[in-house]
């Protein structure tokens, strides 16, 4: 038998609506809850991508050159120091 979990503070009307939705859809309440979580998860991922890919103030050519220069410098330092074994 699966573990029983508790959600505190659920409004009676909301609970009744939730139950009715599950019945209407011929699904278990746990399944409807899983769908709800999946929906919000996907929505958040979509929102996150949108936020990342919407650039209101792009780097200027000069700024981009400077950023690229600094990243190259950062990478150069990965020529690790030679270990002295003795």
């Amino acid at each position, binding site marked *: 038998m699966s573990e029983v979990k508790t959600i505190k503070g659920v409004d009676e009307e909301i609970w009744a609506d939730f139950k009715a939705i599950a019945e209407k859809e011929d699904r278990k309440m746990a399944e409807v809850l899983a769908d709800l979580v999946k929906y919000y998860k*996907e929505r958040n*991922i979509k929102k*996150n*991508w949108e*936020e*990342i*890919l919407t*650039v*209101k*103030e*792009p*780097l*200027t050519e*000069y*700024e*981009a050159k*400077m*950023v*690229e220069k*600094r*990243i190259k410098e*950062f*990478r150069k330092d*990965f020529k*690790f120091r030679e270990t002295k074994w003795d």
Partner: protein
Amino acid sequence: MGLILDTSILIDIEKNILNTISQIKDISKNNSGNASISFMTYSESYFGILGKHLHNQELHLRRLNLFNCVNATKDTGKNLAELKYKYELKGIHFQIPDLIIAAQAKENNLILITKDKLFCEIEEIKTIIIE
């Protein structure tokens, strides 16, 4: 499969290169999961942002922090060593930061989005090149 973006792509986004952004939009529609970056990409991008050369440093830092940063584990170390060993035997030399990104893509089953064609040599990961 989720996506992991490398630094070349992050710079294109920051420059608002529309061709790159539109390709990534299309790819992200067909692939579930967050926009991920390796801790290595986070670190080098953060280093690039540091300093007084940016007009709006906070804005660029904010976007960098929107990515899901993939952290290193023991498996990252294992994959990194195995990739370095295998490709050096083949005569292909990668920079350590690139191998870390590839090792994390492999470990987390992520598709690597990059402009660097050399990553295509790594058979263990799926790579999409943005032209």
